């Protein structure tokens, strides 16, 4: 009988590069920046790392294929490095690989690193993916983009709950306002200016009903983590251990896209979060989760995700959002504490690890102006693909013993 991952692995070091338009840096520079911080934080030598997992998504325009870019950039000592790609969950997948490797006993110390260098393609938004969707799909799939794919969710959500689109838009606007407020407190964020609800509502339309400020930024960045067993962590002199409580992944199987679904929620997130709470021993997430970093690629994604994480009741996320339940200091569950994808942008392979980095800082009380009071469990969430066909990853980390 599987017992889950809870408390079997500890994070002993993390690093995160400055996120932004890093015109003068390549993926190798970003990785070294994150890795240097991480190694220092862990207090170990590079040669102590026995295996590594690497997350990147758009290899076509970024680092290229294979895990060699990591091994070369970090000059790893000819150890095993595996490249993983699973849309926006790629960073969390790298973490999962490293964590499972340690939990299995195959390795003592493992590295998870993610990077994406997006600002080398010459245009805004994520790279165009018509040639990256497979030879059959490219002959029939609709001419869609990431914002358009998620924008559709707003139309069906509004229809399902009979909410006027202007109300949904206002809640979406608040989602972005809140994240910008948090990002303004974070020196590593790309976008650091607070915005107003009016600014968000009046921003130019990207994909109905999403405006520019409903969309996350596009940035370059890298983040990484070093993991080991709690026993080894203690032997290295580590105290106040942050351990992995849950790691879950759920993928669409075509049901939403081709069989039955109201277009009002993420089937995968709903399942992955339930599994994650079970794995972490959390019964009432609205009460027990201290903080979250969710996949706010678009404001509507975050809004709906609040329901699939079983934090908000179905149809009630707009109310919780407008009540400030997810705001920093709002008395609820602070969400996008570091500013989210909204302010960090979404260098895909790095995002999952960037989210964990903030949870890790918070759990160690090192989050500066954003520091929450005694957080116990931090949840991160990635949603890759589209509302009707996606990959969802959930990670929960927390204080050992929590």
């Amino acid at each position, binding site marked *: 009988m599987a017992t889950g991952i809870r408390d079997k692995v500890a994070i002993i070091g993390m690093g995160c590069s400055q996120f932004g338009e890093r015109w003068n840096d390549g993926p190798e520079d970003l990785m070294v920046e994150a890795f240097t911080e991480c190694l220092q934080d862990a207090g170990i030598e590079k040669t102590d790392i026995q295996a590594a997992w690497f997350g990147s998504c758009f290899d076509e325009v970024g680092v290229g294929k294979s895990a060699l870019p990591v091994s070369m950039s970090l000059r790893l000592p000819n150890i095993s490095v595996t490249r993983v790609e699973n849309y926006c969950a790629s960073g969390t997948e790298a973490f999962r690989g490293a964590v499972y490797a340690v939990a299995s006993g195959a390795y003592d110390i493992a590295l998870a690193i993610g990077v994406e260098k997006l600002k080398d393609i010459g245009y805004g938004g994520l790279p165009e993916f018509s040639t990256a969707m497979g030879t*059959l799909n490219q002959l029939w799939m609709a001419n869609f983009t990431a914002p358009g794919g998620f924008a559709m969710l707003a139309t069906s959500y509004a229809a399902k709950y009979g909410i006027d689109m202007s109300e949904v838009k206002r809640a979406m606007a608040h989602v972005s306002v809140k994240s910008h407020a948090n990002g303004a407190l974070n020196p590593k964020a790309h976008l650091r200016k607070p915005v107003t609800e009016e600014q968000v509502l009046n921003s130019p339309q990207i994909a109905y009903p999403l405006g520019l400020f409903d969309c996350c930024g596009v940035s370059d960045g890298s983040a990484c983590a070093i993991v080991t067993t709690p026993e080894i962590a203690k032997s290295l002199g580590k105290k106040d251990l942050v351990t992995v409580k849950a790691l879950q992944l759920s993928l669409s199987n075509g049901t939403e896209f081709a069989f039955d*679904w109201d277009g009002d929620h993420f089937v995968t997130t709903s399942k992955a979060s339930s599994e994650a709470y079970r794995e972490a021993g959390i019964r009432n997430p609205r009460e027990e989760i201290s903080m979250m970093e969710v996949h706010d690629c678009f404001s509507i994604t975050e809004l709906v995700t609040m329901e699939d994480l079983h934090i908000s009741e179905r149809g009630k996320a707009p109310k919780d959002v407008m009540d400030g339940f997810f705001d920093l200091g709002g008395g609820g569950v602070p969400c996008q504490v570091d500013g989210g994808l909204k302010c960090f942008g979404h260098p895909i392979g790095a995002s999952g690890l960037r989210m964990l980095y903030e949870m890790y800082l918070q759990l160690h009380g090192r989050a500066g102006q954003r520091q929450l009071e005694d957080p116990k469990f931090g949840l991160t969430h990635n949603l890759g693909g589209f509302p009707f066909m996606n990959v969802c990853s959930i990670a929960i980390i927390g204080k050992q013993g929590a």
Partner: protein
Amino acid sequence: MAGITSFGGYIPRYRLSRMVIVQNMAWYFPVIMAVAGGEKAVANWDEDSVSMAVAAAYDCMAGHDRKGLDALYFASTTMPFADRLNAGIVAAALNMRENGVSNADFASCMKAGTTAMIAALDSVQAGSRKNVLVAASDQRRTKMATMFEMFYGDAAAAVLIGNEDVVADYLGSYSINCDFVDHYRGQAKEFDYGYEERWVRDIGYGKVIPEAISGFLAQSGMKIGDFAKVIYPCYFGGTHKAIAARLGIEKERAQNNLHAVCGDTGTAHPLVMLVAALEEANPGDKLLVAGFGQGCDVLAFEVTDKIKDMKPRTGIKGSLANRVELTNYQKFTKFRNLITADLGIRGEANPNTSLTVLWRKRKMLLGLVGVRCKKCGTPQFPVYPTCVNPKCWSVNDFEDYEFSDKEAKILMFTGDMLSPSVDPPAVYGLIAFEGGGRTMFDFTDCDLNQVKVGMKTRMSFRRRQTDNMRGFTGYFWKAVPQVEGGGK
């Protein structure tokens, strides 16, 4: 007796008022002011001769089994492929049988549509084929500020030729073939090259059509007065009237050339006019139809009682009613790729079409054929080997299921300004079909402001991408939101 057993038509939704052309281009060539009245039908940016032929063919096949077709003849001078059977694309879109059928392209001449009809009628009369579908379509690009730009419209029409339940008996035909070159389009040239109008009117239309009709009358022993409608294309209004006068055709018996409402549709036009005439015809009416171009074909029909039993269809009348004015001349010129606008770096991607995939998945990609699970009955698209129903998940236990003629409802949608499109925003969404099955499609022929969750859609075969580097045109199906009255 052989004859027409069904008919259908398709005129694209956009209409361009000739005054709009005049307002924009008369500064350059004031002569176009002489024909500034009325409007012409303009294909949407994602339509071409093949896609419009498919629309007309579906309209024609309403109430008829597409699997019963023995041949498909496609007539056009604007086929997307010089070497690849264009009729084969139309046939695949209709999900026709592949074995035991004989499809063909009839090309290179304005009368190719009537010639294809004669060939179809001959083969049915000879007993070698039972059901032959003839589809004629043209979407001719014209230079800006030309008379061709004023006269030409885009449309398609189709007639089903057979010998059971005939709605218009075939009474015979007569043809003149001569190398009269009023205009031509040389190999690899984009536009028609025309000669002096006075000569084209007097020695071309005005002489050849009357000679051909007279030839038919002499051959058949029939009189011009026997015909309830005489149908002949001629976009010169005066010449159209002069032909009637010369042949002794009463004014109301000369079929309207549709210049005012859709323009001259080239190879399609004799069939478009014939279908328009059939829509108004009564049992016992005799119809004479002529196709002009390097000579003239003349065919005669007599409408039967069966015409009353035909299932309702959109036809020419319905297509004309589904009308939206294209008020922006620049948009028209961009749709026809007459001007260069930037699609941005995002629009540069030019994925090659895998011909092996196209072959393997031709039913899916051209016919919009999915499957229905034999075990649980769930229709599904796209097809994976395992049933999509989580309570079933049976493997490879399917039968073919056509989605092309199914209505659907919009579940979610957007209008995307980021997606590279000739006509932004790119509107698309997830739709659920009546009877089951759902998937995401591009939408077309719609205005984002009118699209709503829950709105009905119908499927339309469209040009999906043109690979200019390799010369390949790809097709797939799009959803058309059904706005009352066609929108606007």
